[in-house]
């Protein structure tokens, strides 16, 4: 496979370019902070992007294992699903890997050869599709989380009502009403 012959230095340059393009999707002051602050707790977004893109780069130039690619993509998609991006922009950072590859390829013999570039392009396209699926799942998750949160707010009400009904059924009568309130 042409990709395995790409040098480590070229892969590093690709990662650097891809990270820079991805950070460029945030406002300027923010991208500087995301790039420069090394503490993973003071800068959780920058840290997540760095770790995930690193892992994805290894996959892109290596075995491209679908399960591992999904696992690396997942934290970033979780992030971008709730940040101020349209769906296209949320997954668009994956497509930016193409720009990074093109930029690295421009450097001739030091870069990525045309054969390798083709394989890389196909892998990036596949990654975009995985990312789109993950984004979809995140949106579903958010809806389910909202519904469960609403249920938790009426927990005692539901429990008390269930108990009242069970007791009434045992007695053969109508249940006493459960605690009343207006849930905002």
């Amino acid at each position, binding site marked *: 496979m042409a990709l395995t012959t790409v040098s480590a230095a070229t892969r590093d340059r690709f990662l650097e370019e891809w990270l820079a393009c991805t950070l460029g999707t945030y406002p300027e002051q923010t991208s500087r902070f995301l790039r420069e602050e090394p503490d993973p707790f003071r800068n959780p977004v920058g840290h997540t992007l760095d770790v995930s893109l690193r892992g994805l780069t290894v996959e892109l130039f290596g075995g491209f294992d679908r399960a591992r690619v999904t696992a690396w993509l997942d934290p970033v998609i979780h992030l971008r699903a709730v940040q101020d991006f349209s769906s296209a922009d949320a997954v668009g950072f994956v497509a930016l890997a193409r720009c990074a590859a093109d930029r690295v390829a421009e450097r001739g013999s030091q870069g990525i050869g045309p054969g390798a570039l083709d394989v890389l392009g196909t892998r990036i396209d596949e990654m975009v599709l995985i990312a789109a699926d993950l984004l979809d799942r995140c949106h579903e998750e958010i809806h389910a989380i909202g519904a469960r*949160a609403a249920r938790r707010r009426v927990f005692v009400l539901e429990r008390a009502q269930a108990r009242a009904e069970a007791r009434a059924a045992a007695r053969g009568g109508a249940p006493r009403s459960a605690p009343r309130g207006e849930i*905002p």
Partner: protein
Amino acid sequence: MADQTPSPEQLTQVDYRPKGKSWLDPHVEFRKGTYCYSAAPKNLTYLGLPNPRQWQPFDQDWKLPPDWKDIILAGMKERLDRYRSFRLFMDICVRCGACADKCHFYLGSGDPKNMPVLRAELIRSVYRRYFTLAGRLLGSTVGARDLTEDVLKEWFYYFYQCTECRRCSVFCPYGIDTAEITMIGRELLTLVGCNINWVIEPAANCFRTGNHLGIQPHGFKDSIDFAVDELEEITGVRVEAPINRKGAEVLFVMPSADYFGTPHYYTLLGYLALFHEIGLDYTLSAFASEGGNFGLFTSHEMIKRLNAKIYAEAKRLGVKWIIGGECGHMWRVMHQYMDTMNGPADFLEVPVSPITHTRFDHAASTRMVHICEFTADLIRHGRLKLDVSRNDHWNVTFHDSCNPARAMGLIEEPRYIIRNTCRTFHEMPENTIREQTFCCGSGSGLGTDENLEMRLRGGFPRANAVRYVRDKHGVNVLACICAIDKATLPPLLEYWSPGVDVAGVHEFVGNALLMKGERDRTTDLRGEPFASAKEDRAHA
């Protein structure tokens, strides 16, 4: 539509980069999931607040009063004269940037206007324009902006994107408290009827029935009776939970979610078990049935009105002092505002624990003690029999809720209780706890379902630290002492750190507490088998 379809040639030249926008532009887009719905007119009317009407933030026309600008500027002037802190905060910021990267909303969203210094600048720029000579003369060259409808909408967007958590103020060398600036911003917005339902409805309900949920006294009693029944089923001990009992020594006030929502409810079971076991002479009140004070998120006037009812009840019932439950902003109100607004509560006595005789002198003015202070003192004096193995199924970390931690310095007591009731406890990284704790991302009335996306952004720094201890130490529960946290951390963790539950500190107390006359317990307050019971079953 057809003319927008790109040609094949255009398709090959797709620019993958998202379109940027200038952050200086005041125009904000109210995208679904990132804002809270407006206050319903009936709730504004109930509280006597201005401009009740049907509108939503995404509407073009906000139906502002014709003289809205004069109202806001007059309101600003009044507050600049009344609150020295506000004028100071407007004047002394040197834009050093120390606060810039400290806000969880900035860290999670990357939106520069969520940097505390810029959040404050939204209002400071208007202050400069209308209240300083340089601003009046030189305008935008000195960072002054006209007050326009777009600016007002921008205020609404960003002041309802600040949880008033005060993390930024910890890092400001001048002590500028952006939370206080947000409070003034919201007060000004309220003058023209721009506020959110999740704040105003609880405030109106609280005013009407005594609690956020609008539960009436008989509903309150039903709920408490139900908890008493369930506690008996679990422990075999029948406890008493008196309501509106005149002449009791202590009034106990908790957040209403404790008797309605989960996981709050297990904290309530813990309180009830504890009070029974130590024989506390106490009463609940069906009218002061809410510790929370959503006035804090509306206006100073509203804080005062809602806080007063707790003291009115204490007076009516003739108690000697008050214990407050696991609530967040109730304690901010109590420690920072109560005394000047409604205090001193000198018709009450300085709290003295009837069990250990400890005198809580720090509460000499408010006469109200935090349940964690009370319980930690009981444990310190060896007055509770605790079987810590009953919490062995929990591997605990502790989230310092913003208000108890930063507004009242309640940092060690909950940890002391956890360490004495649970055997496995791991702290999150130092720069995410104690005074530097990260907010849940949903405080100050922002915990609505429609705002979930924004909450998940803002809560990411907190959840990220939880995920770290989950992965490193196998932590499976996040303890906290705030009702908003208990409601909003479960969704946050489901999204960012699945497998970590949320619990109140007094739930652990209720699990570990050995009660006189209890049955051979095999389950915790949630009805889950103790770790030892699970092992027995495995060996059987």
